[in-house]
C-alpha cells in the first residue's frame, strides 16, 4: 500500500500509522520531512503525537513491583545451596 498521495503530502490517517517509525528515527529522510511538514500545519496530529509521547513516558513510569518476600527468601536458600555444592 502506498502511504503517500501523489501530491507528496501525508494525511492525518497516514500520519498516525507512522508515529512509531518517526519516534524511533527509522523514517527515511524525505518521509520525515513530510511528516514534520504535516505536523506544522495540523494541530490535531500535533496533539496526537504528544499523546503518544505521554503514553510512552507513562509506561516507563509505571511503578515497579517488588518480588514476594517468600520467593526472595526461597531464592536466597537456593543460592546458598548452589554455592555449597560449587566448592
Amino acid at each position, binding site marked *: 500500500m502506498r502511504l503517500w498521495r501523489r501530491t507528496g503530502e501525508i*494525511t492525518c490517517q497516514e500520519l498516525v500509522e507512522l508515529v512509531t*517509525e518517526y519516534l524511533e528515527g527509522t523514517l527515511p529522510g524525505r518521509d520525515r520531512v513530510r511528516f514534520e511538514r504535516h505536523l506544522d500545519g495540523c494541530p490535531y496530529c500535533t496533539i496526537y503525537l504528544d499523546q503518544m509521547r505521554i503514553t510512552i513516558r507513562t509506561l516507563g513510569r509505571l511503578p515497579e513491583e517488588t518480588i514476594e518476600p517468600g520467593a526472595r527468601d526461597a531464592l536466597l536458600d537456593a543460592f546458598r545451596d*548452589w554455592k555449597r555444592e560449587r566448592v
Partner: protein
Amino acid sequence: MADDLSEERLLVDAVRRGDQTAFMRLVDDLGPLLLRVARMYVPSQAVAEEVVQETWIGVLNGIDRFEGRASLKTWIFRILTNIAKTRGGRERRSVPFSALAGAGGEERSVDPDRFFPPGHEQARGWALGPTPWEGPEESLLSGETRKTVLDAIDALPPSQREVITLRDVEGWSSEEVRNAMDITETNQRVLLHRARSKVRGAIERYLNAMEPTT
C-alpha cells in the same frame, strides 16, 4: 541493572564467586519483569512464580557458561522464556505473526470513523481529532488511570504485550528486544506501534469518559 558492560561483567564475576549480594541485586532488579513476562506464557500466577524460581536456578547453573555475547538480561530472559514455554504448553513463539498477519496489516491505530472518508475534501483528515489531555502528566500514574494502562497492556495480544513491556515499561533497546524475542526490527516496530496505539486509545477513552458532560 547493570547497563554498562563492564559493570555487568563485574556482576557476573561476583555471582560466580558466590557473592550473595550480587545475586540478590540481580534478583531484585529483574525479578518483577521476569514474573510479568512469565505470566504471559502460563495460566496462573502460581505457575509463573515457579517458572521464575526455576529460571534463577537455571541462571546459577548456567552462569559459568555465560559468555557475554548477549547482554546478561537477554540471556536470563531467554532462559525464562524457554522454561515458561515448556510449562505453558502452548508454543507462543509461533503465534506472533499470525497475530500480525491475521488482524492484518489492516489493523488501525485509530478508529477509521474518526477521519473524513475518501471523496471528502478533507479525506483522511481528522473529523474527530484528539483533544489535549488536561492536568499534570503524573496524574496518569495514579489510581484508576494507572489501572487503565495496566488493563490495556493485559488486553494486548501476547507478542504486542511482550514488546511494549520490554521496550516501554522496562526501557530495553530495540536491539535487546529483537534479540530476546528473536524477531526482526520491522516486526518489533510494528508490534510496538500497535501496542502503543492501543494504550494511547485506552487512556483517551478513559479520560474522555471522565469529562463532565453538559
